[in-house]
């Protein structure tokens, strides 16, 4: 990997060492989804991840969030080895926003109930009322600040929201309780071209406000280039290109395509990759 050793570097918030994940097919065959990934992120880092289908992008996020256990290697957050922790136990450290608006929120709960569930992330859930007046006001303030379109819909069921509004809600929920790491798994991919930038703006604001350490998987090269301070290209379970801040500022989607082709020996990015006109 390209990062030079730095003596006075701050302690990484997220550290992956030799993380490997195989998925077994039938007949004992296995696909290597992650092949010895090493990665370090410091507080406030914002990394975008692109790559071919099946490159292991989503698996990487799942291994970090704990949704999928890894076979080998170690995942640590804030210096704590969380490799064996199930997802719910790491949820106060890692927040996720998934691609499908259907799975990112609880549809029969109201918007504010969804927020209240997210608010108690990492806290003991006892017999206190979930929506006291003061907590309602607090949640309302956060929504007004981050996602104004949701502000007057707090008492509606989350199932009545559009896809874009649900993803906005999911972003607010993920960033509400101050997790250390935010994983965005193509969270704008299923939205129409008008809604996606709105959700991305809410995401940027949330990340910026809270100084979150973020990993964002996307198929949209434009998004990958425009957002974040660092870019990873994945292929066959490995990080094949790691573009750091200074370098990334000069990156264009076209140059990114070229670098991907060079790194993979002529593989083009998949057809569903979104290129600007």
């Amino acid at each position: 990997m390209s990062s030079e050793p730095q003596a006075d570097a701050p302690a990484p918030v997220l550290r992956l060492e030799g993380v490997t994940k195989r998925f077994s097919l039938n007949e004992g065959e296995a696909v290597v989804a992650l092949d010895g990934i090493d990665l370090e992120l410091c507080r406030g880092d914002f990394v975008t991840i692109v790559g071919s289908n099946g490159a292991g992008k989503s698996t990487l996020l799942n291994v970090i969030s704990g949704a999928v256990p890894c076979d080998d290697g170690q995942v640590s957050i804030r210096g704590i080895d969380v490799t064996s922790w199930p997802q719910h136990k790491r949820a106060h450290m890692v927040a996720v926003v998934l691609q499908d608006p259907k799975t990112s929120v609880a549809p029969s709960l109201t918007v504010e109930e969804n927020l209240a569930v997210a608010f108690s992330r990492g806290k003991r859930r006892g017999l206190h009322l979930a929506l006291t007046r003061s907590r309602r006001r607090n949640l309302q303030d956060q929504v007004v600040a981050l996602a104004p379109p949701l502000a007057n819909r707090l008492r509606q069921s989350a199932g009545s929201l559009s896809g874009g509004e649900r993803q906005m809600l999911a972003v607010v929920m993920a960033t509400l309780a101050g997790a250390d790491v935010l994983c965005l798994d193509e969270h704008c991919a299923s939205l129409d071209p008008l809604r996606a930038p709105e959700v991305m703006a809410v995401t940027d604001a949330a990340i910026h406000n809270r100084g979150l350490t973020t990993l964002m998987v996307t198929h949209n090269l434009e998004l990958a280039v425009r957002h974040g301070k660092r870019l990873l290209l994945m292929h066959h379970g490995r990080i094949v290109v790691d573009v750091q801040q200074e370098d990334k500022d000069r990156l264009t989607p076209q140059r990114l395509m070229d670098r991907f082709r060079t790194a993979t020996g002529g593989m083009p990015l998949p057809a569903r990759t979104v290129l600007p006109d």
Partner: protein
Amino acid sequence: MVDLFATSAEQGLVLCLVTLGIVISFRIADFPDLTVDGSFATGASVAAVGLAAGLPPLLAVGIAAVAGAAAGTVTGTLHTKLGISKILAGILMMIMLYSVNLRIMGRSNVPLLDVRTALTPLENVNWAHSAAFIIAFGVLALAARGVLDWFFSTDLGLALRAVGDNEKMAVAAGINPDSAKILALAMANCLVGLSGALFAQTVGFADVGMGIGMIIIGFASLLIGEAVFGRRSITRLTAAAVVGTIIYQLIVGTALRLGLAPTDLRLATGLMVVAALGLSRRAVQRRAGAEAGTAA
């Protein structure tokens, strides 16, 4: 006529605890739990044996409720820790509890005729004693409903609802889904056990076959209640459970008076559920069809 209403209200107010339990498992936790047939009889057995042994009536009823909760805990554990499917875990418990209940009672039936029960003080009330029963059971039913309404608006209750509604989201928010499901089933079967304990005292015996079909009776009651109140919120669901059970008992009481053979009761109830589910499915399809029509 008055007699019919009184009996239906009395039975409905006792059995609505079962329906409230079904609200928790089927509707809130999304866990179609069939333990109910077993745990209802467990509640009845435990209470009857306790009362026959001379325990203070409220203590016997309390132990019966705990026994119900224990049964639900086992069902939840079978599913979450051993990966047995929800339906099968419930069926297994229902079957196993049949033997357990026989063990508890030592025989298939325990009479409570000359035993002091939790209801004995009410029988000594001078004015119409079925009114005393209805008031006592009504207070209990409303209290149970109130506790559930409150519980499901707390942080913990909301966590249970989140797991039932969207487990992925709940886990991502840091909720342990296994504990949530086990807690939900424990609560549900606690209510079922309590209902069984009270039911045994109203009819004057506990019988090992007492719970057979109780899941369908409770489910039919809930469907009736939901037809009145809908199911858009917890308060509507719990109201549906209480009112639906009373209406169901009224319907059954009327049908029996009109000549329905008691032996055909479960068939009739089952057909009622089938009809209700079939109709609601067709209504959903019609709505979907109408939406597709406007979109096109």
